């Protein structure tokens, strides 16, 4: 029988410029987060006393350069979703600074602003949600959904809005006539596109994407990821891409931040992180992902134990109960996030000595 018929025209895949050439250390920071904390109190008893805190986000600091994609990756309970919503001020942070730089260069701490103060920033920071079915109001037409941000921000003229909505729909690969329809007429992938169109309605500078492809079918994920890459180039967007899927994060990010139980354990450029991880958790995470290559079986290494609970984290380094390299200091002292090599941060006491394997 003949060999696999290769479709013509798959010679060279078009690429978006690789990370190394896009940002330099002199590119201004669009967002800088310092010491962000978000604790949720646990109430118990008749008088609803606070007995404990869930440390969803436990003192994290990171930055995002203008025009780049920062991937925020971690397992359940690591706080990535809470952090992303905190940054957008969906709820107030417990403490910390969220420094946002506007187009004219002014830097404001979003954490200190109240509701009216935030209004000015809303158009600049938008979000793409995980659930394509819950993120669109089922009672509104696509025109209403995508046009609403414009309406509440001053664009009352219906014709102008219609034109702009049509433009946005075309931008995300949907036909403008679709604006008459309701969300129930669309598939998951299409709804995500609509969500993206809505996020872009106000020309944001930064878009926080909270697991935008996790709920989609595999064949549709690629479409949406490609769309996001395209839009980033066209519109000079900055992404904060939150996900639990390492392959997806690797595919779309310039830099990656790995979180565990509310803390950042490692932050570096994508290639650097994946080929030479400094933190045992990062290495373990990569080892745990099943490789779609049957000749590479039994490479799956599993990590003992369970993901620690943010309500009751271990002492010292939160990862120490599961870490094969743990020593006495790891049990007692919480490590700080430090820059071990240029632009590669890690919080591990033993990072210098360990020689960890990344992907090959």
């Amino acid at each position, binding site marked *: 029988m003949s060999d696999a018929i290769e479709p013509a025209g798959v010679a060279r895949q078009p690429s978006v410029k690789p990370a190394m050439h896009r940002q330099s250390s002199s590119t201004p920071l669009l967002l800088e987060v310092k010491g962000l904390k978000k604790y949720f109190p646990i109430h118990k008893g008749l008088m609803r006393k606070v007995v404990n805190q869930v440390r969803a986000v436990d003192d994290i600091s990171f930055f995002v350069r203008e025009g780049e994609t920062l991937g925020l990756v971690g397992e359940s309970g690591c706080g990535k979703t809470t952090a992303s919503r905190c940054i957008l001020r969906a709820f107030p942070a417990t403490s910390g600074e969220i420094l946002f730089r506007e187009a004219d260069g002014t830097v404001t701490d979003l954490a200190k602003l109240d509701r009216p103060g935030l209004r000015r920033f809303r158009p600049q920071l938008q979000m793409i949600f995980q659930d394509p079915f819950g993120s669109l109001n089922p009672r509104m037409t696509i025109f209403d959904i995508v046009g609403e941000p414009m309406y*509440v921000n001053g664009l009352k003229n219906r014709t102008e809005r219609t034109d702009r909505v049509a433009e946005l729909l075309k931008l995300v690969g949907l036909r403008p006539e679709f604006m008459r329809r309701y969300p129930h007429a669309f598939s998951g992938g299409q709804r995500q596109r609509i969500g993206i169109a809505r996020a872009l*309605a106000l020309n944001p500078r930064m878009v926080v994407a909270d697991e935008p492809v996790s709920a989609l079918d595999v064949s549709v994920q690629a479409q949406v990821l490609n*769309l996001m890459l395209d839009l980033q180039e066209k519109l000079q967007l900055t992404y904060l891409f939150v996900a639990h899927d390492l392959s997806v994060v690797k595919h779309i990010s310039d830099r990656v931040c790995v979180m565990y139980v509310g803390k950042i354990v490692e932050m570096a450029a994508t290639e650097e992180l994946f080929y030479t991880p400094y933190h045992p958790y990062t290495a373990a995470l990569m080892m745990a992902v099943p490789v779609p290559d049957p000749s590479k079986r039994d490479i799956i290494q599993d990590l003992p134990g369970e993901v620690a609970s943010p309500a009751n984290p271990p002492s010292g380094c939160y990862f120490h109960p599961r870490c094969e390299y743990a020593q006495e200091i790891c049990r007692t002292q919480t490590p700080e996030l430090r820059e071990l090599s240029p632009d590669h941060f890690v919080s591990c006491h033993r990072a210098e000595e360990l020689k960890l394997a990344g992907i090959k």
Partner: protein
Amino acid sequence: MDSKEEPTELPIMENPDHPDLEEVDGVVPVPPTFPDDSASATEELLVANQEEERISIASNWTLVWWRFRKNKLAVLSGLILIFLVIIVLVPEFFATMDPEDTDARLAFIPIQSVHWIDEGRLKPWVPGVVGKRDPVTLKMIWTVDENEKVYIKLFAEGYSYKILSLIDSNIHLIGAADPEQAGKVFLLGTDRLGRDQWSRLAYATRISMTIGMISVGVSIILGLILGGISGYFGGWPDMLIQRLIELLQSLPTIPIWLALTAALPRTWSPEKVFFAITIILALRGWTTLAREVRGRFLSLREEDFVLAAELAGCSQARIIMVHMIPTFTSHIIATSTLAIPVMIVTETSLSFLGLGLRPPAISWGVMLQEAQNIQTLALAPWLLLPGVVVIVAVLVFNLVGDGLRDAADPYSN
């Protein structure tokens, strides 16, 4: 799976419109598999015909209606309900004579039987009644006099009235063919004071149904506002309102109602009493709805599309009015429709006991008051007919409400 309604013939999926697919020697060259071209072109395939288009632009209410339509029983009940509402709007049209017309000489006339054929033609008539006083008991005995034919017809002339207090008219649905004989048609008999039951029933329908609908309307408003405040803001308003609801719900309803209605001054006009009864009924009815609304608000607050609206810069008022409330309006309507019969039965019961509306107001309960003792029941069982109408009204509301609730709730299957 997205819900799909009513597809009839579904399209054959071909992609003749694919821009890159042109036949070359019977084999189509490969379209590029890279994005930003094929994706939008193949969107065309997904909606290739009118039917799907119709479904995709269908708003929620349209979908609810389509689902409701499938429930034949609910649709039938709906039609009966519409008929009742028409009676509510123009009861005078359905009446044959003034409901207040008392004539003691015409007391306890039984239901007249309608004869349809006269002299071989379709010419409905009712026999006249001749009363004679029994010399021994001095009671009126009514005998049917077949010779006296009172012809009836549709859309006859009768006493004059104003439609909705605006337009003058004197046409009634059924009446005597000869206006002079208008006072001789008693399709459902008369009561102790000689008042025509058929006409009174029409007027009673108006009052009883209106009380039910208005008190539920007031409950909805109260329930929405208080439940909304409770659910959206939380904190101490929530605590306060919830305790109030618990207090109200723990009070036994019947004694409270009895006490409140008994406390109404006897000197109040029927309109005032009507208004007061409506408010009293509504005061208890809002609690259940408030609880549901609160629950909905609590869960809606966590929804992504609400957060998206906040991030877009929507004010809280807009979020509540435009995003939250419309998602459960259909549910509110459904549960309210189920609450109306409760109010109707409550008012009927109260009036029956003499504690709600009082004559000269006419409601089903007031009419049923006439049928309270055994003697009356033995003599004039037709006075119980308002009870039948109450049953029908309650049934109809319940069936429509159930149908609406099933249609509005996409997970009911």
